[in-house]
């Protein structure tokens, strides 16, 4: 080792950094691309869907069997009924597809007729139209409409 002169404080050049060949970065890149490609080919993209609509679920009904899924549809007007453990209602798709849903637990506060919901649960059997769930998630729209367009203040001065 060279002796370092303690009185010489002028800046010294940084030691040369080791140049790793491009090979290493190419290998890393190839592995990354292969991993991403594998993930995509394994149907990751379709699994990114948070739920199945009623229409989709009815179309794939025989394959679905009784496996757990998130089912999305519109709560049919006048179909909501209170049960011992929660609520039951009819979920409709875009067409004439209907699923009878029975959910245990308290529905969220925005749950009502004619609103989009996602129900976590499963069909009773592969042939059944009855769906048993344990959770309702409300899927509201991006519309925001004034509840009382002509009334901005309540009697106590607070917005109603």
């Amino acid at each position: 080792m060279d002796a370092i002169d303690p009185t010489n404080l002028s800046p010294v050049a940084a030691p040369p950094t080791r140049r790793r060949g491009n090979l290493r970065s190419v290998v890393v890149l190839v592995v990354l691309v292969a991993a991403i490609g594998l993930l995509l080919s394994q149907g990751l993209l379709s699994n990114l869907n948070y739920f199945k609509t009623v229409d989709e679920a009815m179309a794939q009904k025989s394959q679905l069997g009784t496996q757990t899924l998130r089912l999305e549809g519109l709560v049919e007007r006048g179909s909501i009924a209170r049960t011992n453990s929660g609520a039951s209602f009819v979920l409709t798709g875009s067409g004439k597809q209907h699923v009878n849903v029975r959910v245990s637990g308290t529905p969220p506060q925005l749950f009502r007729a004619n609103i989009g919901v996602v129900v976590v649960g499963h069909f009773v059997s592969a042939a059944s139209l009855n769906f048993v769930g344990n959770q309702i998630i409300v899927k509201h729209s991006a519309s925001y409409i004034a509840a009382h367009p002509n009334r901005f203040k309540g009697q106590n001065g607070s917005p109603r």
Partner: protein
Amino acid sequence: MKRLAPLLGPATVLSLAVTFVMGLWLTPPDVVQGQLVRLLYVHPALAWVALYVSFATTTIASALYLWPRTRTMTMDRVAYCAMEVSIVFIALTLITGSLWGRPAWGVWWAWDARLTATAIMLILELGYLALRRANDDAKVRARRSAVFGILIALNVPIIHFAVQWWKTLHQPATVLSNSGKVTVHGSMLWTLLLSFVAFTLLFFWLLRARYRLENQREHRRDAGLATVLEQRQREGL
């Protein structure tokens, strides 16, 4: 520009105050969501700043740094500061979204495409900060973080289009929607748009403050180094 800069603070405070008053008192409750709709004047604007305004700033500054003819340490500093402010906004986006989700959806969190991609974005941005600490050489640090900053900006369109590409619990875009049809009632829409302006101003105000701080730190570091060098040289002689 220089003369307008001092007005940034007052303009931010004023527009935020007006948004606050309009959002809490002057706008009506929603027909479905009731009073919950008041989060509409906070959450979308936070996400707008976190993903679009700050990422545009970081990406442009990073690209200008990487382009040899426009390479200055100023660009590196702007990119870094914008990213740091973005982290604050994206964290607030996730928090306000969660607070909105619990009463509106019934769940604090859902692993749908948009929410998950946004959570990943927060982690990527924290990764950017980690990367900046990984190397002390200012040039190496600037180059690496510029590349990484541009790379993670690719997640912005993924988050934006997630609600169209996949079925998500999160509702589609309200203002930046594809159909161009905005379904928000009059005064609610104006307040929503005002909140976008107010939070954008807040971003630039914070960015300016953060940039000045970074500049001062840099100068102090240089000044400190010069002082120490001088002392050592004196000791040596």
